[in-house]
């Protein structure tokens, strides 16, 4: 029988190679339909009415004028009078009309009266937040006060990361269509298999098997699209009321105000070391906001570098900024920025190269110490660190100062629950079906590669069926859990299907099934390649009945594992006259166990680095304290990096012995964690002073220089 374990990578014809994504041609030809593109016959357009106030009670809602307007077919109240809204952009009413313009007009005519209530949208000072704070946790290990007292050098600083948004280019939303009791949802979601159940819990459908969710492709999620959300539920209800399909996609301002925000995190840190750079103690008072609800516990800082004696106190500020959602690598970029900035400042005080300091303390990173050490070495080589690095403050003459920064990060990335059916048809065609989804990460391609590799077929011979809730259930795509989940289930399903085929074929090759292998489009006897039949001939022996192999990610699955490291280095130029920071080069060295598709894996890292440049230099959900509204709820002032906003990015994937045998591990999150710290540290190295918070904008650079400029 074929063995389900991964073949050695040097024996693979597809796994680990650079392979173009399967849905690439659909996307770059503009022909694939995203949820936003679905136009159903007789479809109505939905629009939302959102609260203009950051905190208010809904007093009354009058929809009569709107309902009489041309084209208006249904209205759905989401927040009933008497209930409160907790952020500007909070959903209140939804309306559906014949055209998008009519729906927008109708939304404007819905009269909502509010009683304004006090709001808080500033998270920068917990002392000013009064009753809007909640001390979540305090964690002490060892004796940090004594450790810091005995430290030969200490450094104190304040660091932070503001609230930013997800800003998926495809807005949140869906098309909902009823046929009797059956509901079809064309949803832009990270959770195809989970959404039917959500519709039942919301009492929209009476059973999950009457709900079908279709998501062949989706335009970005980054952690913000796990649920149907109030607008998704309202869309289904509007469609039911109107008896017609409804498309409800958020407009960009709503998207930025209400559809997800990454929690902020700020900290006052004291960290100490011996003169040789050995870290001895850490204390931090941190705070941040995740919107109106307190979430999570104390941050796990110091991040990655586990200083034995430490005390962490964390306070959550309850604000009306908007609802927090998981943002690619939840909490890690914030914890990383705080930790790596503090360590970098300490290294500067010791007049020590920060890479040397990390290497000196590498055992504090735990199990992955060797990986980190190797990754730092590789990154230093690719950056030419030793040659380029200088002590803090670029002393060369001129207004442009150059600097280097480093950071390391970690992530779990264990595979989520996943089920795959792999079917071989008598005509030789092969399909793998999973209720998973491809967020643009390459999930579809990974499934295809594993199936084809297992069958000894070219990639084109395999059809991948995902993005449909009728397929075997699969986990939501979050936390870099998808690639592990689908890789395990697909490999097991494909192997199970192949073994059934080998059973059928064995007699005709006069061999036992476990003497056979599937290679190069043939089933052949191991060791005697001439005793072979073609894949098509083999499958013809199935007669009229296809075979299906069933695969499930096992609870402890030896095809996958978790826990990765990663090291990044940034080189920046800072114009000390204008304060503008240019990222000249970013080096990212990353491990993720066994790589299935090197091309899409590298793309994940490139993309994460660019997303990292964006949140390091530009992104900030700016709130107006007086009105409580978001001041930059559009793409003109909510800045995303463009193609010319950074220099070079160099990606190196750690693979081969020591990595491949770990099996598949998730990759989406880890490389987005370090850019903020690496870039912030590089700026400090360039200009000689710390810009304490992200984004490192020109005004902050100039402000920091005013306090202590470069000599």
């Amino acid at each position, binding site marked *: 029988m074929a063995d389900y374990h991964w073949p050695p990578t040097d024996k693979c014809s597809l796994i680990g190679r650079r392979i173009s994504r399967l849905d690439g*041609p659909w996307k*770059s030809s503009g022909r694939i339909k995203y949820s936003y593109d679905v*136009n159903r016959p007789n479809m109505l357009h939905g629009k939302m009415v959102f609260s*203009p106030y950051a905190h208010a009670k809904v007093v009354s809602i009058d929809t009569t004028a709107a309902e009489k307007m041309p084209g208006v077919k249904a209205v759905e109240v989401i927040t009933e009078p008497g209930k409160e809204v907790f952020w500007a952009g909070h959903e209140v009413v939804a309306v559906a009309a014949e055209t998008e313009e009519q729906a927008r007009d109708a939304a404007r005519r819905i009269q909502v009266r509010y009683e304004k209530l006090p709001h808080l949208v500033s998270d920068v000072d917990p002392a000013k937040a009064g009753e809007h704070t909640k001390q979540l946790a305090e964690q002490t290990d060892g004796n940090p006060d004594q450790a810091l007292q005995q430290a030969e050098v200490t450094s104190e600083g304040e660091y932070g990361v503001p609230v930013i948004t997800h800003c998926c280019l495809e807005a949140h939303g869906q098309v909902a269509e009823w046929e009797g009791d059956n509901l079809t949802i064309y949803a832009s979601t990270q959770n195809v298999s989970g959404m039917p159940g959500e519709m039942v819990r919301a009492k929209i459908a009476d059973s999950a098997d009457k709900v079908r969710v279709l998501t062949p492709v989706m335009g970005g999620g980054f952690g913000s699209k796990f649920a149907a959300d109030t607008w998704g539920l309202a869309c289904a209800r509007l469609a039911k009321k109107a008896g017609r399909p409804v498309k409800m996609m958020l407009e960009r*301002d709503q998207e930025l105000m209400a559809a997800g925000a990454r929690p902020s995190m700020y900290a006052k840190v004291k960290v100490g070391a011996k003169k040789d750079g050995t870290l001895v103690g850490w204390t931090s008072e941190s705070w941040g906001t995740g919107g109106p609800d307190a979430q999570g516990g104390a941050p796990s800082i110091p991040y990655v570098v586990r200083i034995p004696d430490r005390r962490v106190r964390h306070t959550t500020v309850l604000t009306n900024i908007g609802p927090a959602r998981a943002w690619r690598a939840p909490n890690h970029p914030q914890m990383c920025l705080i930790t790596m900035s503090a360590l970098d400042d300490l290294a500067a005080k010791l007049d020590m190269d920060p890479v040397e300091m990390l290497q000196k303390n590498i055992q504090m990173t735990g199990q992955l110490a060797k990986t980190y050490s190797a990754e730092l070495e590789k990154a230093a080589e690719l950056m030419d660190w030793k040659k380029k690095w200088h002590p803090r403050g670029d002393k060369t003459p001129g207004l442009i100062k150059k600097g280097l920064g480093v950071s390391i990060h970690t992530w779990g990335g264990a595979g989520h629950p996943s089920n795959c059916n792999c079917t071989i048809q008598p005509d030789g065609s092969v399909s793998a079906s999973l209720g998973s989804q491809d967020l*643009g990460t390459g999930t579809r391609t990974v499934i295809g590669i594993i199936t084809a590799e297992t069958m000894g077929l070219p990639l084109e011979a395999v059809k991948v069926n995902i993005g449909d809730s009728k397929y075997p259930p699969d986990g939501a795509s979050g936390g870099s859990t998808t690639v592990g989940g689908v890789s395990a289930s697909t490999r097991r399903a494909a192997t199970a299907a192949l073994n059934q085929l080998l059973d059928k074929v064995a007699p005709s090759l006069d061999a036992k099934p476990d003497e056979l292998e599937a290679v190069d489009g043939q089933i052949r006897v191991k060791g005697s390649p001439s005793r072979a039949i073609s894949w098509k001939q083999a499958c013809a022996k199935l007669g009229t009945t296809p075979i299906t192999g069933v695969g499930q990610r096992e609870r402890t699955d030896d095809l996958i594992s978790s826990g990765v490291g990663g090291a990044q280095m940034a080189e920046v130029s800072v114009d000390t006259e204008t304060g503008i920071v240019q990222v000249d080069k970013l080096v990212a060295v990353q491990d993720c166990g066994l790589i299935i598709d090197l091309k899409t894996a590298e793309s994940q890292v490139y993309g994460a680095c660019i997303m990292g440049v964006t949140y390091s230099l530009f992104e900030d959900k700016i709130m107006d304290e007086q009105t409580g509204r978001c001041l930059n709820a559009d793409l003109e002032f909510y800045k995303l990096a463009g193609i010319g906003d950074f220099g070079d990015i160099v990606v190196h994937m750690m693979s081969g012995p020591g990595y491949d045998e770990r099996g598949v591990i998730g990759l989406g999150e880890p490389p987005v964690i370090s850019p903020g710290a690496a870039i912030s540290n590089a700026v400090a190295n360039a200009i000689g002073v710390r810009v304490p918070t992200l984004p490192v904008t020109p005004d902050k650079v100039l402000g920091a220089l005013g306090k202590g400029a470069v000599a």
Partner: protein
Amino acid sequence: MAKLEDPKDPAKSDSPKKQGLLRREFVKLVGGTGVAATAQVLAGHKLAAAATTVPNAVLGSGKVVGPGPVAMSLRINGQEKKLTVEPRVTLLDALRNHLDLTGAKKVCDRGTCGACTIIVNGKPTYSCSVLAIEVADRDGKPGADIRTIEGLATEGKLHPVSASFVENDAQQCGFCTPGFVMSCAAYLETHRNPTIEDVKQALGGNLCRCGTYMGVRDAVVEAAASMKGGRA
């Protein structure tokens, strides 16, 4: 941009609203590429007073149409497409909501991100910032030559730019990709030998959230090379 759409927003005495136009429409008009034509069909001389950049010569008869739906013809990918939409409907919404040409994507809807880029009279154009009626046939004269990504290559084939985006993995979620491909295709029609530095300038009007720019840089240079090789 919600503030622009808020009808309760106190209008200044000289605001376009007082002249019978919502601010959103006004902003779209002055932000659009064909101010004069729209001004004429939408609001005639009233808008001309507000939009002082309108040359008198093209104001024509001042015939007013709308605000209800208006029958019009658009020349898209070499074909005449008839549709009936309100004059305020953007070219992007006309393509997507009325003609099921959904390759151009709606993201910012305010002329910033480039996801809606199509080619109008040979130029890459944000279709969210043009009204359909601006580029429609009018007074017996043919409207603009509109090319969308659906017309870039024949069905089942890939344009060299699209193929190069696949090869260089210049796309992840892919929602920005058609806009990038159209910007790139239009650019390469007039620039045969771009460098990476050129590409950074040329595609500065398109935004991507997944961070595919490294692939895009290579894809454009490679597509240029392959198009010169006669494969286009």
